[in-house]
């Protein structure tokens, strides 16, 4: 038996289930803590972690079977049936690594998911349902995600329209400190972009809309200031970034209006982002100096370029994930034999040191510093040579899934039992991690 085989996963995501089902099983905060603790107390469950985002809910169980994980979903809603995917062993490890590396995301390469997995792990660790195994698993998942990020270009470019808008604005204005953003129209996408721009440092966000009620509502929602529609002309003088998304059938920002605003702005740059269809900003505006205008097609084109580039990078990312999964599985398998090995080595070294000291107590006076060191080195060398064969064989046996040999070795040498697979709940404090000996070998 080895660790990886005992990992099970049941989940549903944007790929397998509609949002109507996902929202029924999604849970967070205190609810999730309660659910984790309840799940961990079920028989046959060692460790538990649940990743719950708006795109996926996944239950990772380290234990005897995936029955409990499946039950976690079906107890919540019968609708989940038919939308669940189930993985065990390496498949489950691979799935988590892919999720963390953002290979399974709706927008491949998007950066949020890693943070969400980290949060899920943190939550499970805080209620102590994540023990030594899940800790190690998650650490490797995070390291894999980091490798994918730094060794491939999967996270390069802008993956969504609002990200493209932000990138553009950044190239025109640098940061947005002290600059004003104007939202013309109360569309949802405009609001998203405005929020993203605030993250870039814009400290003034203004909203204007034909219907003042909607303008006020949106302003309240995103922490902006609502301005009357009639003042649009003077607002254009104020704002450096103008995001337009009204339902108007024709240009709201005409060439003349832009020219008039530019005159009053004394040439200060302005960027129009037109998210509306039909378009609300006359593209001819951009013919003037220091006026930049983009429509939804311009932004969408960048997004699809990014997606195409990311799809290519994903192939390289999958190879990294595969290598990391292999390394992790092997590490866990080898680890099963390691308590015996560590104990064996510890005892042998203890004996060697004691014998060397005894010898030195007798003859140490006749030896110089160099001679004394040679005696110590000789004792150490005997230990190493004697243990070399058994060490190699034990590791080999463990890697091939043979658990008899470690047991036999333990009995033969009279040292402790090999690490037992989790029969009952293992908590971090009663499952000290032997990671000191098991740094991944790559």
């Amino acid at each position, binding site marked *: 038996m080895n660790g990886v085989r005992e990992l099970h996963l049941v989940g549903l995501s944007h790929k397998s289930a509609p949002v109507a089902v996902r929202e029924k099983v999604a849970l967070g905060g205190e609810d999730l803590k309660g659910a984790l603790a309840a799940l961990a107390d079920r028989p046959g469950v060692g460790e538990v972690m649940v990743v719950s985002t708006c795109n996926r809910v996944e239950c990772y169980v380290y234990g005897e079977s995936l029955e409990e994980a499946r039950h976690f979903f079906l107890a919540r809603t019968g609708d989940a049936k038919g939308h669940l995917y189930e993985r065990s062993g390496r498949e489950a490890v691979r799935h988590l690594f892919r999720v963390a590396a953002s290979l399974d995301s709706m927008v491949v390469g998007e950066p949020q998911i890693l943070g969400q997995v980290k949060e899920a792990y943190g939550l499970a660790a805080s209620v102590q349902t994540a023990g030594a195994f899940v800790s190690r698993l998650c650490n490797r998942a995070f390291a894999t995600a980091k490798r994918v990020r730094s060794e491939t270009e999967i996270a390069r470019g802008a993956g969504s329209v609002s990200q493209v808008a932000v990138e553009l604005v950044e*190239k*025109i204005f*640098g940061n947005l400190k002290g600059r004003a953003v104007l939202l013309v129209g109360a569309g949802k996408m405009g609001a998203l972009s405005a929020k993203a721009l605030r993250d870039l440092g814009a400290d003034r966000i203004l909203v204007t809309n034909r219907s003042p009620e909607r303008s006020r509502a949106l302003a309240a929602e995103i922490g902006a200031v609502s301005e009357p529609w009639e003042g649009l002309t003077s607002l254009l003088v104020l704002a450096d970034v103008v995001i337009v998304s009204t339902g108007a059938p024709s240009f709201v920002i005409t060439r003349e209006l832009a020219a008039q605003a530019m005159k009053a702005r004394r040439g200060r*740059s302005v960027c129009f982002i037109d998210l509306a269809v039909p378009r609300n900003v006359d593209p001819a505006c951009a013919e003037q100096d220091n006026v930049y205008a983009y429509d939804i097609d311009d932004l969408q084109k*960048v997004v699809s370029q990014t997606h195409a580039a990311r799809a290519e990078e994903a192939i390289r990312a999958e190879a990294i994930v595969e290598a990391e999964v292999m390394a992790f599985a092997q590490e866990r398998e080898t680890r099963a034999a390691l308590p015996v090995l560590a104990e064996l080595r510890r005892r042998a070294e203890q004996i060697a040191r004691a014998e060397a000291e005894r010898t030195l107590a007798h003859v140490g006076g006749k030896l110089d510093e160099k001679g004394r060191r040679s005696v110590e080195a000789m004792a150490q060398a005997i230990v190493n040579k004697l243990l070399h064969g058994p060490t190699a064989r034990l590791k080999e046996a463990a890697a091939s899934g043979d658990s008899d040999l470690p047991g036999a070795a333990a009995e033969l040498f009279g040292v402790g039992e090999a690490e037992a697979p989790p029969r009952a709940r293992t908590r971090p404090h009663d499952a000290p991690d032997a990671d000191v000996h098991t740094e991944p070998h790559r």
Partner: protein
Amino acid sequence: MSLLVLRFAALFYAGAVTAYVLHFARPRHAALATVGQWLLGIAFVVQAVAIGLGCKEYGGAEFFGLRGGLVFMTWLAAGASLVVQRLYRIPAIGAFVTPLILVVLLPTLFLVKPDFPEVLPEAVRRPMLTIHIVTALLGVALFAIASLVAVMYLLQEREVKGKRFGALFSRLPSLAALDQLNQRLVRVGFVVYTVALLTGSGMAKVVWKSAWQWDPQQISSLVIWMLYGVMVQLRHTGWHGRRFAMLTIVAFGLVVGSMVTLNVLPEGMTRHGGDFSGERK
């Protein structure tokens, strides 16, 4: 000896060019920019040694010739660009400035022979002249860097306006940053150049007994000074971005043009070609 050390400096400049250009091509390797900056710093120091040795060898007369002037100007440009890098942290600038420094420096290593007068009139041996030479060359160096920043601005503007979000778009800094840097370089350059102009007329007064002589050098310097002065003023009336960048390039074109013409013109036409070569440019 000074020439040998100068060639060493050129090697380091070449290294800095390589590092900066590679960094521009592969921005993910951030260490390249650091390497470039270090190499540029080392080149600056080595060139300082070369200039110091040159002063010892020729007693300062070197800077009255074209060769010495170019050497000194590249050194000042390297120093200025080190300061700019330190203040703004825009390594992309290195990929534009260091090649220019190297290109200007190269002919002084092999082609241009030392071309200064054997004997310097005692009248010009004054601290005022030193200030004049340093500020004039520094002013031109700053205008040169400003014009390169303006080129970067125009390149980036073409990407941003033309909706070409490719390699240049991601590698060049933001338009606002380039515009601001351009403006500041022009401003500082103008102040420095003003000092050069004042000390220049001071020297003219000493040597020619009159501050203004309708000398071609004086006329072109005054025109250039006024042009940059106008640019500093235009800034307040909303001139920025594309138009300002173009103006920066045109103005520097004029600087280079006047330098070339005045050096090509027959000796007789420049009043100080004979006795006052400090106003060489």
